[in-house]
């Protein structure tokens, strides 16, 4: 940080703390390890389900709800990914998400849902453009600009809806008239058999059936698009010249500049796309997850999206996984909260026991024992209660995120020039 701006630039770039911590344990995540891990997790979940009878934790309904809840978060996360990969921290996603919901409601009720989606994307992109102007052209601290954009987005959407929806049938000061839904798809012929299989409650098979049913039936067109966009993001950023240039701007903009890459253009592109993603997330909220714009509808999902991206180590797959985790935890608690979250305690207890043992074996005695103690506490809680109180089930996604980060944060590696304002020609 050679040119830190006066209002201290808070950023999650690699600090000494992070780097030293990161050095301590570097276990590479190969695809094989990932698969083995996922399989082990599934087996444990299935066991937990059978032990606790909390069938909802792998039911098709839960998975499908998790998917729907994950999409807006994932889109915000994807927005954060685009922006931060180009070196611009985008706290303003929440504001762009809000703009997206408003635009989707506004255009959606008048011209149909698809137009609503497009309008949302455009509005989000507009928010992104504003952020780009401030951060890229004017070199304003990224967080500052983001905070301002949240304020502006909130105010603008509220203002516009009082102008546009008041007095319109079905609409009002704080909400738009209903927006027609988008089509949804199912793989034909699987719903019945999978549902039957899930109802058997068989170990592992029922769980797999539930998960598949959730993923294969009643999936909104916008969900499909969102998933496709995750893959497309990966392809664009990691497999194309454009992506390489964009990422180079987040790692070492001077290097990119010195090879003839127009860093400003790339950053602009990234931040505008970032806003567009947030807009799309907003469209999903307004059109698919509900059927109208409502004030306050985003509920902080922009921030959660950023968390999902950090959780996902600034990678599309990871970000999607983070969003999925969040969506899953949220779905669980909203559905059969008390019971499912209670079952989750057992799951967490078991996983943490395994982790603690692994840590002890690897020689990190202290962390290991701390982990084991925590696991015991969780298991005792599990044993002594039947349900988790309603006030606390809502915390599941947040606690889960915090836990996972506490375990895994040291492996995270943000882009090297993330959050650092860049000015052309300042390189030495």
């Amino acid at each position, binding site marked *: 940080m050679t040119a830190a701006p006066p209002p201290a630039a808070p950023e999650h770039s690699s600090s000494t703390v992070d780097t030293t911590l990161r050095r301590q344990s570097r276990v590479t995540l190969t695809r094989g390890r990932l698969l083995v891990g996922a399989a082990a997790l599934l087996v444990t979940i299935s066991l937990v389900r059978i032990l606790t009878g909390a069938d909802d934790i792998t039911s098709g309904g839960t998975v499908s709800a998790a998917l729907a809840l994950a999409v807006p978060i994932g889109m915000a996360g994807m927005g954060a990914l685009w922006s931060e990969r180009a070196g611009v921290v985008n706290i303003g996603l929440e504001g762009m998400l809000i703009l997206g919901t408003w635009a989707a409601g506004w255009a959606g009720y008048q011209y149909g849902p698809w137009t609503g989606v497009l309008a949302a994307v455009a509005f989000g992109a507009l928010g992104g453009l504003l952020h780009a102007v401030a951060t890229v052209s004017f070199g304003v601290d990224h967080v500052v600009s983001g905070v301002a954009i949240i304020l502006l987005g909130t105010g603008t959407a509220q203002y516009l809806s009082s102008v546009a929806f008041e007095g319109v049938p079905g609409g009002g000061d704080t909400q738009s008239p209903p927006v027609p839904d988008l089509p949804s798809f199912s793989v034909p012929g699987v719903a019945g058999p999978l549902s039957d299989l899930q109802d058997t409650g068989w170990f592992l098979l029922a769980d797999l059936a539930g998960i598949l049913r959730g993923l294969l039936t009643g999936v909104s067109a916008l969900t499909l698009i969102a998933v496709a966009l995750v893959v497309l993001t990966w392809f664009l950023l990691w497999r194309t010249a454009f992506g*390489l240039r964009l990422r180079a701007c987040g790692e070492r903009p001077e290097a990119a500049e*010195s090879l*003839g890459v127009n860093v400003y253009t790339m950053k602009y592109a990234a931040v505008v796309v970032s806003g567009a993603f947030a807009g799309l997330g907003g469209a999903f909220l307004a059109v698919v997850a509900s059927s109208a714009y409502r004030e306050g509808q985003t509920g902080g999902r922009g921030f959660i999206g950023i968390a999902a991206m950090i959780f996902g180590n600034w990678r599309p797959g990871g970000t999607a996984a983070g969003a999925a985790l969040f969506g899953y935890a949220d779905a669980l608690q909203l559905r059969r909260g008390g019971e499912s979250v209670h079952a989750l305690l057992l799951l967490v207890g078991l996983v943490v026991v395994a982790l603690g043992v692994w840590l002890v074996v690897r020689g990190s005695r202290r962390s290991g024992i701390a982990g084991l103690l925590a696991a015991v506490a969780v298991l005792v809680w599990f044993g002594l209660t039947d349900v988790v109180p309603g006030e606390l089930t809502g915390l599941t996604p947040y606690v889960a995120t915090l836990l996972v980060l506490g375990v895994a944060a040291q492996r995270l*590696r943000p882009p090297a020039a993330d959050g650092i304002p860049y000015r052309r020609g300042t*390189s030495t």
Partner: protein
Amino acid sequence: MLPRAGARSTQETDIATDPRSAAPSPDAVAVELTGVTKRFPGVVANRDVSLCVRTGTVHALVGENGAGKSTLMKILYGMQRPDEGTIRVAGREVRLSGPADAISAGIGMVHQHFMLADNLTVLENVVLGSEPRRGGLALDFAAARRKISEISTAYGLGVEPDRLVADLGVGERQRVEILKVLYRGARILILDEPTAVLVPHEVDELFDNLRELKAEGLTVLFISHKLDEVLSVADDVTVIRRGTTVATVDPRTTTARQLAELMVGSELPSPETRESTVTDEEVLRVEGLTVRDAAGRAVVDDASFVIRRGEVLGLAGVEGNGQAELVEALMGMRRADAGRTTLADEDVSDWSTRRRREGGLRYVPEDRHRHGLLLDAPLWENRILGHQTESSVSRGPWIDRASARADSTRIVEQYDVRTPGIDTLASALSGGNQQKFIVGRELSGDLSVLVASHPTRGVDVGAQAAIWDHIRAARRAGLAVLLVSADLDELIGLSDRICVVLRGRIVAEVDPSAVTPEQLGSAMTGAQDDARGGAA
């Protein structure tokens, strides 16, 4: 040394077939700059510069820090736009509005500070901006890998495309930088202080590469502060003083001393003045110091040494052989995995950086921007940095602003720091002046040991001499110094003893009065060890 046929094969794989790559005629002019002027706020970095570089030659550019060399090269590379003047490449006038224009004009530049993204692979760093594509969109990794390997073998660069740059050493990074330029089919190469971080052995390799390039008809523009190097490799040498070209000389008929005089208008200072001040009072003793990296490999391996009052112990070694880690462990910035450090009879192995500093240990860091300064803070606040608990700048929990300011003024005067005042931001000073301030700061108060890491790196001859003088004076006053440097003349000139590190171990101790830089250089690379870089 390198197979000529291999070199030729590069041209066949050039992305852009360059019409100018036809056989060079020896007297053709590759680059001609006339009347170039570049002003920065308050500074005229280049004033009416004229420079003529013949095709197929190595042309060196020398001058003091801040003389305007880098700026001139950045202008030629399109990174800075000149306020006045014209640029001709191969006889044709060009307007360079960005590096992209320079690249397409066949110019490539290796920057003074490496322009590499650590977290990208070599391949990604190399192809960035001129990516081969497949189907219009997708990056063609296979083609890129093939081409990089070809160039790498052709010029003996030994670069592996899929390694992460973060894992490469300095020498390797330099070769990646050169490969980047070659990959773009550049016919004119600009190398800004390429040898600053290299040891003689690597410098030789680099020069071999340069000669190879020259033989291929490429033109090399080359900046260095090391005048003997310049004389050995260049065909022409241009001297820049205060933004203007003052002369272009023939290296065969010029001595280093004459060059230096042209640069600064004075004699070349020399580090060597030896009258021993070594006492037998031990100040710092290090025993069995071991530092391991994340993978458990010992980067500092069982290092032991002793420094006495009034003694300068030089630490010689190829960069990346554990010096940085050793220094950081010594300063308490990094945990040692084994070993004992004794400072003035006290075991300080478990002490924090703070306590060690309070105990009289001082530090001139290798990277002044990262470790030595708060760039956004005024000089007087920088005076406090690292000395927070010293009575001269603080009283109990309070900062004593008045004394800190007074002492900063003293340093500015005593160490000839050229600044308008102590309220000037550190970032507004030139590197040499920043370094003088740091040296002044670290040499104030009660100190017994100075750890100086590359104290004159990138500093011009004037400032260099001043810093040497100060270190010498402190040594006379009884200071023990650990001097880590890549500049072998500096090591030999200043040290009373020199330890050589190789792969984290101290492998030899030599007497500076009886060693030449060449001998030292080969000791540093492990004498018979020639695996590095695959040079014969």
